[in-house]
């Protein structure tokens, strides 16, 4: 949930709620979900980066997710981990059964189905903790229902029809490298816009 406060008054509330029943997606047991304690760490000054650079690193993450074909546009720590809807998707099952670790998964092109990462916003940046909170949509156009990883293995899309996910995603960035990612997302109708964002879709490339 994001709350915007102006002059000590609430002006905006934006929530992404991951609920069941829904289409196939990660859903961790709420009683067992733990947040990595490093999110609260104040970084040593040498690991700080400017706001613009923190956003660039997070934006590079989304550029990597979009059309994920193995090309990586950002940097990760070796121990980078990602929690999605309370489930680790970089270790133990799911995508992690194909490849483990943030960068390894992207190098393999697991997330090829993301046609666009759209309406990206970065409403919260904390230089001291190295945190960027982002929001956006992953569009799964499903113009194909199978694809090949960069190692030649064939993958099948879980859903066969166009869909999107709406997300709030936080990045912990140390020395310009993403060390932790945590996201809450839910399915929405394909290409649904945000009431808070300005469309940034390039209609020439769609």
């Amino acid at each position, binding site marked *: 949930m994001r709350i915007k406060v102006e002059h000590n008054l609430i002006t905006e509330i934006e929530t992404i709620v991951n609920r069941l029943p829904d289409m196939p997606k990660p859903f961790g047991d709420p009683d067992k979900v733990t947040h990595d304690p490093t999110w609260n760490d104040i970084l040593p000054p040498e690991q700080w980066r400017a706001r613009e650079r923190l956003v660039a690193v997070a934006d590079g993450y989304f550029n990597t997710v979009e059309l994920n074909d193995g090309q990586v546009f950002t940097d990760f720590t070796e121990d980078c981990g990602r929690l999605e809807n309370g489930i680790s998707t970089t270790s133990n099952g799911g995508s992690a059964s194909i490849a483990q670790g943030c960068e390894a998964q992207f190098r393999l092109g697991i997330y090829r189905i993301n046609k666009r990462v759209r309406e990206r916003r970065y409403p919260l940046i904390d230089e001291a903790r190295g945190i960027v909170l982002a929001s956006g949509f992953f569009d799964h156009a499903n113009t194909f229902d199978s694809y090949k990883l960069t190692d030649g293995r064939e993958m099948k899309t879980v859903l066969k029809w166009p869909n999107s996910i709406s997300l709030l995603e936080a990045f912990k960035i140390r020395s310009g490298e993403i060390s932790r990612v945590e996201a809450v997302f839910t399915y929405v109708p394909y290409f*649904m816009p945000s009431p808070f964002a300005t469309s940034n879709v390039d209609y020439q490339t769609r």
Partner: protein
Amino acid sequence: MMKSKSRMAALCCSLAWLSAGIHAQTPVCDNKCMNAIATQYLLDVAKQDSSQLPWADQVRYTENNVGMMIGDGFWGADPAILGEGLLLPDASTGNVVWFGLTTEHGQAAYHGLRLQVVNRQITEVESYLGREGQPEVFAKVEGYVRHTSFGEGVPAGGRQSREQLIALVDGYFNSKQQNNGQLQTSFTNDCEQKTNGMSITSGDHWAAKAVQGCEAQFKAGVFKPVDRIRARRYPVVNAETGVVVALSIEDHAARYVDYTMLDGKPLAVQVEYPNSRGKLDLFKIVDGKISHIDGVSVFLPYYINSLWQQ
């Protein structure tokens, strides 16, 4: 589901015959012309080629209540038309609706499509796809049969005016929202309702397990958790066949998870969080009574704005 080549071939031939009417030089687009344009649209979407369709300069395209570019969404997902479906033109409003089955990468969906045609050009495209996997009812299409009465005329003595037909459907919505047993419409004794191919009024659906039949369900208060039915539109009304096509958004606020029918029997809310449903429904009305309802329902975020009506 795989495409049936024989069914597809049969569809192509009959559609090709219909589509020949597009180029007939009548001054206005009558029902035959509307059907021809819709038919050509279906043929071309299956070919993923929109270049030959008679588009207006400004076209609005939505899919499941989201605006997008033509070519995206269903157009891009290996689309195919399954069987013939039902064409429902209304030249008086400039709308034609097609209700049928489509596939994306071979997976079937119930599909309601509305085209608006002005000056023989397509100005609006509005699609609803009831797909398998969403938190909404869905029956396998192999067993789906659309009731034949939707394509049949009503004897002159049993017909209603456009206004009366709309009032009956609007009364259906008024009766369903905050359903408290008060009936503001009329049903035949054998009235049947289907959504995404599944019977709501008989069989294994949760509502049918509680009470069977259109009127009995409404009088029992089965649909109490439906808070609002808004953005109601009636783009196609045919007094000769007694068919009304209604579009609406149904809100389920989920303020409670258990409730009781008017007879005191308990029922459980099916989805325990706020959600809405985008709907395209066909109503068949004979002698002033709703006899059959069939439609597409799409799971949507709660209280999503209608892109077509506030």
